[in-house]
């Protein structure tokens, strides 16, 4: 279970002349409970705080106030050396894929298992399965720059699944994809959710969110303004 309690995130911004310090509120007193196995869409316009919400979850930065916990583990006060351990339990799919350019598709996925100390035979067995799941078996030896956007995003997804995460975060995963590839990716996310993984999908793509027909949380200027059980994208 993921629990946000009055989570607030503020970014300091220097004035144009470097003078008065202002603060931009990215998340404003967000309290949110997400049960294990849920599929939740976080919607809202650019800058509404969707990415920030996800970033707090994989400890890219701490909340300014309030707390965030995963299965009772309060990650607000996480120590730097614990962060890698946390991240090995949370798969993240980014809008810009964030693939390692110097490594092949296979190696990118394998890397996620290597960092967790998975034995080599297991990596050799699991990675092809993951690539098959995302329909990339043919591309195993290609480098990221040889892939189309859809293939790159599916590689990113396969990597996110490599350590069998309990939670999968997808930050605008369809942002760089055409409608067809976006649809494919969504089907994969739903399939993964069916297998028991909690999925958080941040998106401003109306068609995608409407197709999911699951819980929708709407953010506006950092605040949760609406929650729907099986909602559609509404602002």
């Amino acid at each position, binding site marked *: 279970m993921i629990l946000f309690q009055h989570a607030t995130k503020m970014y300091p911004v220097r004035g144009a002349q470097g003078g008065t310090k202002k603060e931009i509120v990215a998340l404003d007193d967000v309290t949110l409970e997400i049960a294990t196995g849920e599929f939740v869409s976080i919607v809202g316009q650019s800058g509404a705080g969707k990415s920030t919400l996800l970033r707090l979850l994989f400890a890219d930065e701490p909340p300014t106030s309030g707390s965030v916990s995963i299965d009772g583990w309060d990650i607000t006060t996480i120590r730097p050396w614990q962060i890698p351990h946390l*991240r090995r339990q949370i798969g993240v799919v980014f809008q810009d894929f964030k693939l390692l*350019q110097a490594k092949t598709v296979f190696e990118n996925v394998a890397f*996620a298992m290597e*960092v967790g100390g998975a034995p080599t035979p297991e990596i050799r067995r699991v990675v092809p399965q993951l690539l098959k799941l995302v329909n990339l078996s043919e591309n195993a030896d290609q480098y990221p720059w040889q892939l189309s956007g859809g293939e790159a995003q599916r590689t990113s997804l396969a990597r996110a699944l490599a350590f069998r995460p309990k939670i999968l975060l997808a930050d605008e995963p369809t942002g760089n994809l055409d409608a067809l590839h976006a649809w494919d990716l969504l089907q994969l996310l739903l399939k993964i959710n069916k297998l028991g993984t909690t999925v958080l999908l941040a998106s401003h793509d109306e068609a995608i969110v409407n197709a999911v027909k699951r819980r929708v949380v709407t953010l506006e200027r950092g605040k949760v303004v609406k929650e729907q059980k099986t909602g559609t994208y509404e602002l």
Partner: protein
Amino acid sequence: MNFLAFTRALRWGLVHYWRNIWLSLAATGVLLLTLAMLALLLIVTVVGRESLKAIEAKVDVTVFMADTATDEVILAIKADLEGRADITSVQYVTKEQALATFEAHHRANPIIAQALQELGENPLQASLIVKAESPQAYPQIAESLKSPKYQPYIGKVTFEDNREVIVRLSAVLRTLRRIGLILTIAIAAIAVLVTFNTIRLAIYGYHEEIAIMRLVGASPWFIKGPFLIEGLLSGSISALLTLLYFFPFVRILSSRVSAFVAGGQFDLARWSAENALGVSFLFLVSGILLSTVSSWIAVRRYLR
């Protein structure tokens, strides 16, 4: 870092070195140049040191003893001088030895031989040849010989004739050493900075990859490992290449410079053979340390 993580770092380090072979060769090349600079510095330092030593060894002071001085007195003074810390050696030349040397020297000149015969007795003085630790010590030594304890037995001290030359030489030598040291430090610093910046730039190209590795949950050591292995590889390759050319180069150089250095007394090739182990160690350690420490510092920046 456990064994599995270590073998993975080793493998990725090797794979990366190979996949980015041009970048790797560039880094190795810069290291090679740096080590060449250090090698040259080493040769210049050694040759310079030996040359200065040879010049210093040529300087000595002869203390001519008065005829009143008996053997015992001279030996006592010799023992006194040898007891001083700033004196390295004292050689006693008796009247007879002085005469023998003189005769040997002028054997070809019958007039001098005849003059000596006519004199009937040995006109030469016994003397002590004093060599000091450094030229700076001679004024003090000369001063102490003027004490009343020695004065009655001492005729002439050659130092007074050469005072100007010795004092000036010692000043020149001191300055040369200081300049040498400063140059050595400056050149070494430049070499280190160039290497460090090259490696830093090479790793800068990876800062996004490093950020991604962190997002995927790689621990700092898991990220650092391959970079350190790559550094180790460039360091050892450049050090081994340096060793490959250093000794043949020194051998060729030796025959050309030994005539100038220390009046032919110093054999550079023999020096390098005698210190081969130390020199090899020096190059290996500086090559490896330079590249791995640079990599380490460069990567660390992106791990904060």
